[in-house]
């Protein structure tokens, strides 16, 4: 089966660290031998990364004996070079130097362009994350301002909600109601996390009818806070309650009641 270029490109990282084997190795080597410039270019870049991988190992100084042995053997061999060999070796110097300088410049520029593209992508992703964080922070600030307005309201009323669990659990709730702004902030304490697919839903009962005041989840300490806006005039509210409902909430309470004023 013939592979597409993208598949060959995906084989290059493993090839560069010697992990390829079998048909994949054979097919990639045939593809490279056929002269795919893009794969050659990418392979050279992967080899740069692999060189970096090899550089993660601490260097170790060879002993003087090893150095003497290597250098000595070379010095012994160098004396045998004849004129023609020296000429060709000098030609090789020039060729390697010129090719090297060009290849170095080419790869350097290519590598830098690729690095910049990656950096740009990372920056874009970070910017998106920061914008998202900023949006969340703004929402939180607006919510805290509303809470602050309710707490500072001169006519605020405190409504206590008690646990209906038998035997009585440690959960309770408090609704701080601002009659002027027609808003309230509700705090829950000591509630257990709901089961999968369930949520807590806050209600107030006015003229005998339950009205949804929003759904909420508790944190790891069983606490939650929600702000309720545009409530009916507080003097018409008979009671506050919390029930357990399906995820997303329901228009009328259906589940067990866990807190009630």
């Amino acid at each position, binding site marked *: 089966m013939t592979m597409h270029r993208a598949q060959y490109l995906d084989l290059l*990282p493993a090839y560069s660290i010697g*992990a390829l084997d079998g048909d994949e190795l054979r097919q990639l080597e045939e593809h490279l031998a056929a002269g795919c410039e893009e794969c050659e270019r990418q392979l050279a870049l992967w080899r740069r990364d692999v060189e970096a991988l090899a550089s993660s190992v*601490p*260097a170790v*100084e*060879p002993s003087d004996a090893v*150095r003497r042995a290597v250098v000595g053997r070379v010095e012994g061999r160098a004396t045998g070079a004849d004129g023609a060999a020296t000429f060709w*070796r000098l030609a090789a110097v*020039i060729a390697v*130097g010129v090719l090297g300088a060009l290849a170095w410049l080419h790869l350097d520029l290519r590598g830098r362009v690729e690095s910049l593209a990656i950096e740009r992508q990372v920056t874009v992703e970070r910017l998106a994350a920061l914008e998202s964080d900023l949006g969340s922070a703004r929402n939180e600030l607006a919510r805290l301002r509303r809470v602050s307005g309710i707490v500072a309201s001169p006519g605020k009323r405190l409504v206590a909600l008690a646990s209906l669990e038998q035997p009585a659990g440690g959960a309770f709730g408090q609704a701080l109601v601002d009659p002027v702004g027609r808003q309230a902030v509700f705090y829950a304490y000591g509630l257990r996390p709901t089961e999968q697919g369930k949520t807590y839903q806050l209600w107030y009962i006015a003229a005998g009818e339950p009205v949804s005041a929003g759904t909420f989840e508790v944190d790891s300490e069983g606490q939650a806070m929600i702000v309720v806006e545009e409530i009916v005039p507080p003097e018409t509210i008979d009671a506050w309650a919390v029930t357990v409902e399906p995820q997303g909430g329901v228009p009328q309470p259906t589940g067990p009641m866990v807190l009630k004023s």
Partner: protein
Amino acid sequence: MPLNEREPDDLMLVGGVAAGDEAAFRELFDRYASTVLGFLIQLLRDRAQAEEVLQETFLQVWEQADRYRPSGASPRGWLLMLARSRALDRVRSSRSRQGRENRVATEASGARVAQPEGPRRLEDDERRAVVSRALETLPDEQRHCIELAFFRGLTHREIAESLEQPLGTVKSRILLGMKKLRQSLAEPSRV
């Protein structure tokens, strides 16, 4: 990762070695023998064998420098890959003889960690720190697969057998790990 700033200079050294210049060879040896030896000890877990392969590698460089092609790798990378190839030949032959996994790692016992001087030492230390930090950003299972391939010479299938993991899992760990490594190396602020 930026290219080795000594690279143009290295290219001239390799060119000199190709022309039979002993001074260029000595300079290349002094410049990279400690890097190559450290790498070989990591691969072979045996200093004596690593020094033998170091000698073989540099003698091969002396004889074959005119075969070096700059488009394929930097001189430093070329040296390291020549050394790796020779080392893994030994590992494979040793593995087939006696089961290398049972060997107690000598971990560079008695080795003197090289202390090059001045700017070169700083550059090497910085390079090592950058790569180490980049490796640390990889999930353990990805890093482990990459290390088994690169430092132990195991192929996809051998790693899958060794770790008792599906072949596809090993392949994707290596691919994802290498891509993440490249991204970390290209991102100076994070590594």
